[in-house]
């Protein structure tokens, strides 16, 4: 008789994770998944035209930019940091792209990658200041929030700039490659899918959870915490760059006030999606559902004919409700599987 068998007699060992239903109920995303389903049902029953394919596809299109930036923010929040400058960065990079194309005459094929590169670099700078000088990231990126908005206004003289008229460019980022499906929706799908995979299955993803969950344990285990954090900042900056390219392709111009308050929607999506601001918990899939909820509620309020100002109130209540629900789920899953 092997040791394994001897022990198996004494107590039950089950590493399989249990049935699909059990795994689903134990998953951290269960709360947000249930909320999405309920909100979907309410909208489907209550709002005329909500379930129409056109309407759903336009919701998907509207949350594309939110979903892309929130994917990056998920990495940052799980690693225990935050970036409040994504809204300003989004505006600045959109202006930068339009400015390069229209005012400087740089081909859009060069200007677009440059926008992503700028986003990555600004993320790296935010990350290096945060980790090297040990300044809380919300302070560092609050400063960046102000500075980047100023830079966007300076670069554009405070007025919108025309974007690229290159057809291939608009087609790639704002066309509809499939009937009724917008290109930006597909970009979001790709970013979310790759992000979820990287977070859940790669060594980098494991490091992100470890560093955010217990920084000193991660350091003790030989994980280069600072490098992991800087990479999360860089990723968020780069994805914000992608979001700006999509926006310029979509609207055909860049407004220096773009993304004002956007950071709140992004953080809301991540938090509604089950991430804890203390770090160590959260998932890209949860964030995606968080973005969907935000999009669906906004859409439903429009369909219900509710005053636009109520949307803000709804967003606030949504964040509060989500945080309270997550608190309950976290308590429960501490004693269950699949944290």
């Amino acid at each position, binding site marked *: 008789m092997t*040791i*394994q068998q001897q*022990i198996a007699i*004494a*107590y*039950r*060992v*089950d*590493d399989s*994770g249990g049935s699909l239903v059990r795994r689903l109920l134990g998953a951290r995303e269960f709360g947000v998944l249930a909320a999405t389903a309920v909100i979907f049902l309410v909208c489907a029953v209550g709002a005329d035209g909500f379930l129409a394919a056109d309407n759903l596809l336009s919701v998907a299109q509207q949350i594309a930019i939110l979903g892309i930036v929130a994917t990056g923010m998920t990495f940052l929040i799980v690693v225990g940091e935050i970036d409040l400058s994504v809204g300003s960065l989004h505006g600045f990079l959109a202006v930068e792209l339009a400015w390069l194309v229209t005012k400087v005459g740089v081909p859009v094929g060069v200007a677009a990658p440059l926008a992503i590169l700028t986003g990555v670099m600004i993320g790296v700078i935010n990350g290096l200041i945060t980790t090297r000088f040990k300044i809380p990231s919300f302070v560092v990126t609050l400063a960046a929030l102000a500075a980047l908005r100023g830079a966007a206004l300076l670069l554009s003289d405070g007025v919108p700039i025309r974007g690229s008229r290159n057809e291939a460019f608009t087609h790639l980022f704002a066309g509809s490659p499939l009937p009724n499906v917008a290109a930006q929706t597909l970009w979001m799908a790709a970013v979310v899918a790759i992000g979820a995979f990287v977070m859940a*299955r*790669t*060594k980098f*993803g*494991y*490091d992100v*959870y*470890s560093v955010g*969950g*217990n920084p*000193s*344990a*991660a350091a*003790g*285990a*030989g*994980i280069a915490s600072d490098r992991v954090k800087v990479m999360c900042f860089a990723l968020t900056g780069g994805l914000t760059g992608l979001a700006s390219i999509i926006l310029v392709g979509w609207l055909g111009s860049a407004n220096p006030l773009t993304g004002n308050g956007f950071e709140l929607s992004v953080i809301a999506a991540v938090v509604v999606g089950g991430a804890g601001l203390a770090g*160590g*918990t959260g998932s890209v899939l949860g964030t995606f559902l968080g973005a969907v909820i935000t999009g669906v509620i906004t859409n439903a309020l429009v369909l219900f004919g509710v005053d636009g100002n109520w949307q803000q109130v709804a967003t606030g209540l949504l964040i509060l409700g989500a945080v309270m629900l997550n608190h309950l789920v976290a308590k429960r*899953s*501490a*004693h*269950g*599987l*699949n*944290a």
Partner: protein
Amino acid sequence: MPLFEAVGVRKRFGGVEALRGVDFSVEPGEVVGLMGDNGAGKSTLMKVICGAYRPDEGEIRMAGRPQVFRSPRDAAACGIAVVYQNLGLVDQRSVAANVFLGQEPRRFGLVDTRRMRAEAREVLTTLRIRIPSVRMPVAGLSGGQRQCIAIARAVHQGGELVLLDEPTAALGPEQQQNVLSLIRDLRKQGKAVVVVSHNVDHVLEVADRVVVMRGGLVSGMRDVAATTAAEVVGLIVGNAPAAAHDGAPHTSGELA
């Protein structure tokens, strides 16, 4: 030949000498209890052994070969693993992820979760640690189970000499027994264990030998079979006036 040897180790912090020429050795498959009052120098010695401090003088040998540890990584590469009192576990992550923390096995560039779960279960089974599922987050486990998982990681990541800092502090009586029996299992598998503890009963229960430090020196060494709790306590508090050098406050920075 001893698995680990420290010979004539001295360590000075500014004007005070925390270690004043310490000789310390551990045989393979031996459990050594390292005891001493706060400030006696045992934390400093621990940090020298695990590579966190470099001794000013003296030699460190692993299996007879002299070693210079520039960092805890060097020591780990030599087979020295430390389990600190705070355990270094990531609460939100699974048992398997914690056993492999920072050393996740990879396949085609991706973390091989299947292998990780299987190997984690194997380690737990060998060490007779009872955890219903390696998928459970460690936050949901008891203090004793958490201590065991931290030890399992130390062993799994190649520790031949396992240093345990206060492994039974803050545990209930039953969990203390679980940890002590795990230490016995480690010995059975030929691992050498150094237990730093204030608890004389636990040390006498599990160790082969007790080394007592006082004022930066080894003030006594006893075989557990031939000593009593009273004698060990006497060594710790320093009955002999000559040994009554008061450990300076600089070493009070215990391994947190």
